[in-house]
């Protein structure tokens, strides 16, 4: 447990080969499933941190974040200590910077402001310290998006258009683009319960994985769909996904030091030797302010 995140990274094949290699992720679809008792958002936070990390991905990845669940300030506050932690855990020149410099908000840039402002989305909800050199996060605040039955055109299609536009704008930079959607279940509410619209939207997002080699990471609340007639959406998403990460309570309930368990189904990726490899991992976790502890069942001392 030297590197607290290594369990997750290993399971996600993020640590295969050299650490700068995000290759296994290109063009993949990752699905995070959670439930009321165990919120899976921390996986998302981990991945944001991972993709925006200044030293690990050598600044060659861009995150497009489509937020239905939380305002920007929320993610901002959470990522702040995470960034800090990362500075501690992975020694680098970044670690020497003080927390002010490590501010996640710094990564948000004029580009983003231009997008968000220009497209008429809500304000970001916090004062952004804009630094030109980090043009790495594009944040869409979709908290108030409504696309009622006849509003697909202006709602979901327009949202897709904005995502593709953002992707097009940065695709020439030859960087890894990750699209994160938090979360599908709320997108469904925004679409007034039209599962079909949600799936159409996801299909179009999927075309970006082939056209621009984007990675897609989404969250779905699986317990909503436990009754048989509502099962289509998570199943469809599972068919679409290459990696499924499921957060659920332990059978024995939750405790202060075990916040749940993660099951990761990695349908396949190539290892260094080019061999097909699927991975399945299960471990317990404990979410902390600045990191997440992972351990094997019973392996906690």
């Amino acid at each position, binding site marked *: 447990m030297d590197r607290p995140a290594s369990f997750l990274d290993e399971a996600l094949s993020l640590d295969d080969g050299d650490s700068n290699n995000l290759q296994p992720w290109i*063009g993949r679809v990752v699905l995070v499933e959670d439930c009321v008792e165990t919120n899976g958002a921390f996986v998302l936070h981990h991945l944001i941190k991972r993709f925006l990390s200044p030293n690990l991905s050598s600044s060659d990845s861009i995150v497009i974040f489509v937020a239905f669940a939380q305002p920007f300030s929320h993610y901002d506050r959470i990522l702040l200590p995470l960034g800090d932690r990362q500075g501690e855990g992975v020694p680098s020149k970044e670690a020497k910077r003080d927390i002010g410099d490590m501010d996640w908000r710094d990564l948000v840039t004029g580009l983003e402001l231009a997008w968000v402002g220009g497209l008429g989305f809500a304000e970001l909800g916090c004062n952004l310290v804009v630094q030109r050199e980090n043009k790495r996060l594009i944040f869409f605040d979709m908290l108030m998006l409504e696309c009622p039955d006849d509003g697909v*055109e202006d709602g979901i*299609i*327009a949202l*897709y*258009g*904005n995502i*593709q*536009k953002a992707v*097009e704008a940065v695709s020439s930079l030859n960087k890894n683009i990750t699209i994160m959607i938090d979360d599908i279940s709320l997108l469904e509410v925004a679409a007034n319960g039209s599962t*079909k619209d949600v*799936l*159409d939207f996801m*299909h*179009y997002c999927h*075309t970006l994985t*082939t*056209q621009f080699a984007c990675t897609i990471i989404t969250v779905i609340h699986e317990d909503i769909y436990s009754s048989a007639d509502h099962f*289509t959406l998570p*199943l*469809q998403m*599972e*068919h679409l996904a290459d990696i499924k990460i*499921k957060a*659920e309570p332990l*059978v024995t309930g939750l405790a202060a030091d075990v916040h749940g*368990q993660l*099951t990761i*189904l990695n*349908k*396949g*990726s*190539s290892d260094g*030797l*080019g*061999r*097909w490899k*699927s991975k*399945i*991992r*299960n471990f317990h976790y404990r979410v902390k302010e600045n990191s997440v502890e992972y351990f094997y069942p019973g392996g906690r001392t």
Partner: protein
Amino acid sequence: MADAICRVLRDGALEGEHATSLTINDSVDSPFGPIVFDYIFTQLSSYISSGKSQSRGVVLVAFSRSPSFIVELLKSRGIDITTTHEWLRILDCYTDPLGWKERLKERGAIKTPSTEASLIVNLCKDVRNLDDLFSLIIALGKGLVGEGKNRFSVAIDSVSEMLRHTSLSSVASLLSNIRSHAQISSVFWLHHCDLHDMKTAAAFEYMSSMVANVKPLSTATNVLRENSENLSLLEQNYKRGQFHASLKRRNGRVRIMVLPSFSLNMYTCTHHTQAHIQCSISAKKCEEFSIEQSLIKFTSLSAGKNETAQSLVPKVSFRHYRIYPFMSFFYVQHNSGYMFWQVQFNLQLSDKERSDRAKVVLPFEHQETGKSVQIYDGRRSVTEGKHVSSIEKLQKQEDPGRGEIIYFRDSDDEMPDSDEDPDDDLDI
């Protein structure tokens, strides 16, 4: 067995009959339907491109994968892309199925994506209109083979996607129109059966002359969902599965085949000597690899032992058949005297690979050295130790860093009295 299916597709339709049709079913518990689809598609493609099949061309209706994926797929299977204009048309229902991009482009919201030139691709911008889709498919097919008696094949990579946009009856009528079209030789499609109700699956099976089911090894219901504890079981399901196929024969009989296990131990062989040692089904999702030279085999287990192939009156369900759990086997060449199918693509081995391959000792009874290695006698071997040692020897010759051979003796799982003719279902 997959190759038996491919051969039936290759042979196509008889004059005055419906086109041969195949449904491939899968579910999230064993989500390898697309891989099987790719396999059959590339297999048929190679028959077509080499002029060995009834159909002269294939129209691929791509709902769930992009044309660029198809290019990579064909390349990875060693099919010459430059000749595809003679026998392949792609109807792209993936890129813009509902015309969103078109509309956004008109509004200036997004730019025009660059089109790929390597394949002939026709974009379909409204998949909801199945009449148009049908006309497009036929027009593309006729563009390939011309009017007249030449036939072509149609492959639809996900009818589940179609069902999202239209009703079951309209999809069914499209399939029926395709089947009954005089110029169509064969048609096959992929169906994720867990996304739809039983009725849907039954409807597709009704319209198929063959059904292939990809199933998880563990038949416990919903392993993925209910039982996160049993990880090893889960892991098995992500590496191996069962493959069931049934063929409706013209004489009214049904041939049912069960491949109790296939595995997805995928090896690519750029510089691996063991690359040609494959587990029973190997398949590859090519977008994950950049390695050019890969070898794909779809090798069934030794027939008669692991494969139940019998003619039965229709309506007998698979459940009546013995299913051997968890079994897989591997071969290199058919020098063993046992029946199996093997298909290889891109078998241009380098000299190094050739010599490496020659060194591999196979776990077969007859090593062509005059000595009999008692590996496979259909019963629990009394010379178990010997068998192990041969495997060890085999492994010693491998570069230990390069990979592994996963070996399960099929005789371990075999009923002592299984004495069916191994060549029973050989379709010669």
